[in-house]
């Protein structure tokens, strides 16, 4: 029998892996993929609670979270491509127009 704690622990580990990726990588697209990992971890938590508590409203929330993730992917990659066109790099340590 599956238990709720297993799914929650799995999504916590997935979220932590995504955190490592966001904090350590320098390529903007890899950071982007790590953000997607963290979004998936949160969605997995919501679906696990929704399934184990017998309440389907959590799945509606995951559905809208998917919508926002799709919009974020489109706009985020457009921003990355625009930055690459201006700076010829996606290395976030070399994009320092607003730093001093």
């Amino acid at each position, binding site marked *: 029998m599956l238990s709720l704690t297993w799914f929650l622990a799995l999504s916590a580990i997935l979220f932590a892996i995504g955190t490592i990726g966001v904090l350590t990588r320098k390529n903007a*697209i890899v950071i982007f993929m790590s953000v997607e990992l963290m979004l998936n971890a949160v969605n997995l938590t919501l679906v696990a609670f929704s399934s184990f508590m017998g309440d389907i409203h959590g799945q*509606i929330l995951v559905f809208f979270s998917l919508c926002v993730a799709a919009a974020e992917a489109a706009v985020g990659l457009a921003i990355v491509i625009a930055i690459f066109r201006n700076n010829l790099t996606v290395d976030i340590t070399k994009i320092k127009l607003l730093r001093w």
Partner: protein
Amino acid sequence: MDLAAILFYVFALVTIGSAAVVVFSRNIVHAAFSLMFTLMGVAALYVLLYADFLAATQLLVYVGGILILILFGVMLTSQGYTLNFREATVNVVPAGLLSVAAAILLIYAFSTGGWVITEVDERTDTVYDLGMMLMTDYLLVFIVAGVLLLVAIIGAIVMSTRLSVNTED
């Protein structure tokens, strides 16, 4: 150990292993392809949680849409010299400490939460219930999500097409 537990362990291993490859791989194409296995593993876990509609949506939106977008982004932005950074990672020690602390705190909070679990006797498919709810209780949110997607599409087109502004400096 029953079949569901074995399937859970297999899909959990696939998900976490390929997520680690996404984060730690030097090659960005390998990272993008192992992100596909992570997303498929999460979709399989949705099936184990009786969320059939969300599993199908996960496959369609993430694997079919977002992953293709990411691969296009990889192709458009990596021109040989950006494939391998000499130092692909920065701040490994503080980031590792922070994420391990986050994982431990999350697992502690989850395992000591005392969640009330409701035993559902009979599982049906969720498509009918989700559709009815989206068209009644969540109709306004549904429309707002559609407008959000439209705005995102227009914004992405405007940002990624080459504007005819003179950028001399």
